[in-house]
């Protein structure tokens, strides 16, 4: 799988209240959540972001609440993937469970700039910066997470498991 798009850059400790403020959590409708994605980090973001774009952030992305509405809002806004130095653990689980591609890479997080065009080879774990002509390595995705991805998320994985038992 190749994910190619334009980068929006964010800093460290982007919390789930910044990704999707609780004032919008009286619904779990993905399209409605997408209309407010990253609003408290950048109030114009929902109108600027385009389907196919990517987010690059620093460390501890998605810290705070367990709200799955956060990766749902990102995915529903058409953002293809999030690359960060590290992810908060519940956000990490949620992303794999619902099928939002995420990658950990120190290099990519530091060297990629706002507006760069990048291309992620999801299977090879390679991130290419087309604008700068650089290549970065993402941390390998653990085997179980790959199993979740190939199953199509946790629900499909669970269905298979119930069938097999």
């Amino acid at each position, binding site marked *: 799988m190749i994910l190619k798009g334009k980068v929006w850059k964010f800093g460290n*400790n982007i*919390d789930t*209240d*910044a990704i999707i*403020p*609780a*004032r919008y*959590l*009286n*619904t*779990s409708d993905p399209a409605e959540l997408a209309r407010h994605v990253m*609003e*408290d*980090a950048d*109030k114009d973001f929902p109108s600027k972001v385009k389907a196919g774009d990517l987010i690059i952030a620093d*460390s*501890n992305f998605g*810290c*705070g*609440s*367990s*709200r*799955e*509405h956060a990766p*749902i809002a990102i995915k529903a806004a058409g953002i293809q993937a999030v690359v960060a130095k*590290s992810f*908060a*653990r*519940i956000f990490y*689980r*949620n992303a794999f*469970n*619902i099928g939002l591609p995420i990658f950990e890479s120190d290099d990519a997080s530091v060297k990629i700039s706002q507006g760069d065009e990048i291309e992620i080879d999801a299977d090879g774990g390679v991130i290419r910066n087309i604008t700068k002509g650089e290549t970065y390595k993402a941390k390998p995705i*653990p085997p*179980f997470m790959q199993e979740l991805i190939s199953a199509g*998320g*946790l*629900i499909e*994985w*669970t*269905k298979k*498991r*119930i069938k097999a038992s």
Partner: protein
Amino acid sequence: MTITEKILAAHSGRDKVSAGELINAKVDLILANDITAPISITEFKKIGAGKVFDKDRVAFIPDHFAPQKDIKAAEQCKMLREFSREYDLGLYFEVGRMGVEHALLPEQGLVVPGDLVIGADSHTCTYGALGAFSTGVGSTDVASAMATGECWFKVPESMKFIYHGKLNRWVSGKDLILHTIGDIGVDGALYRAMEFEGEVIRSLSMSGRLTMCNMAIEAGGKNGIIIPDEITEGYVKGRAKRAYKFYSSDSDAKYVEVREYDCSKIPLTVSCPHLPSNTKPAAELSSVSIDQVVVGSCTNGRIEDIREAAEIIKGKKVSPNTRMIVIPATQQIYLQCVKEGLAEIFVNAEAVFSTPTCGPCLGGHMGILAKGERAIATTNRNFVGRMGHPESEVYLSNPAVAAASAIKGRIAIPEEVL
């Protein structure tokens, strides 16, 4: 093994697990609230399991936007109610019976020592105070576990935090955990278990222990945990609805890091905007004016917390420039406040005394901040926009500092008002 590893091993049918291993473990209890359960319900139905794995081990608690704050919130609460009826859930808590989930479940003896608990709420880590392994997960994790009774986990590395000496006057579990987060940062325990011990912890009340484990997530921790002792026994005896088991850490258990604190040097502590790790001694913040004070939440809404705030404000008034909102975390605590005359103390002080809800903690309802307003709260997060407008601010403190600040209309310590 550590206590965390032992509980995970026991629930995955193994003699031993070690940090980094991926396991599938049986869960004792699953919970979700009115924000997270709707997604769990939708995803659960996609699995097509027909029934939940155990109708008495799935708890649905509408507490965040309940009593229902608007039509959409009411629709979400209705989803929980209807699902609970359809699947005959034994642990659905309607308004009038509900409380803030992490205060309610331990109080009702529904989580017990040795349990493995998951919840679609990040503060599920609270129950580590009872010597249980408990952690926050997503709604889809909950949906899957509702069908199978199991959940996947990576066995976390453990960090040990040892608290020596004696606590200063009014310094509580809240100050210890804020100080610790200030020390290690909001990702200082990322993916790790935080084990709290030392003579200060051994003499700390269950209320203080629950507050500390509650905020493990604010350091990125997977779980907070305290080895159960006679204080734990005293709390669970007479409440526990199931058999329980005390686990402890072996003397040769592995810790990736051990940090020690001299509690005589830990002052009343406040987290400044916009991260829980941005801590300062409360005494240094007396120039910070306050528009709103909130006492409550899963962090500090227990009877001991409300008593502490009442002790400070008794016979005094909330500053004319400030409003104070007191929210007991459960119906039982609410009733206790009425019986002990605490409700009367707050009303006489011209504070609001509210029915249980998470409410303002996450900017839901019951005290939202306008642009430029500033609150001090006994809650757990002070991220941008947490309690309302993105240009409002939240300072985090213990109940005594919050109450003193309400009287002064600025951040204050109890000594200034007593």
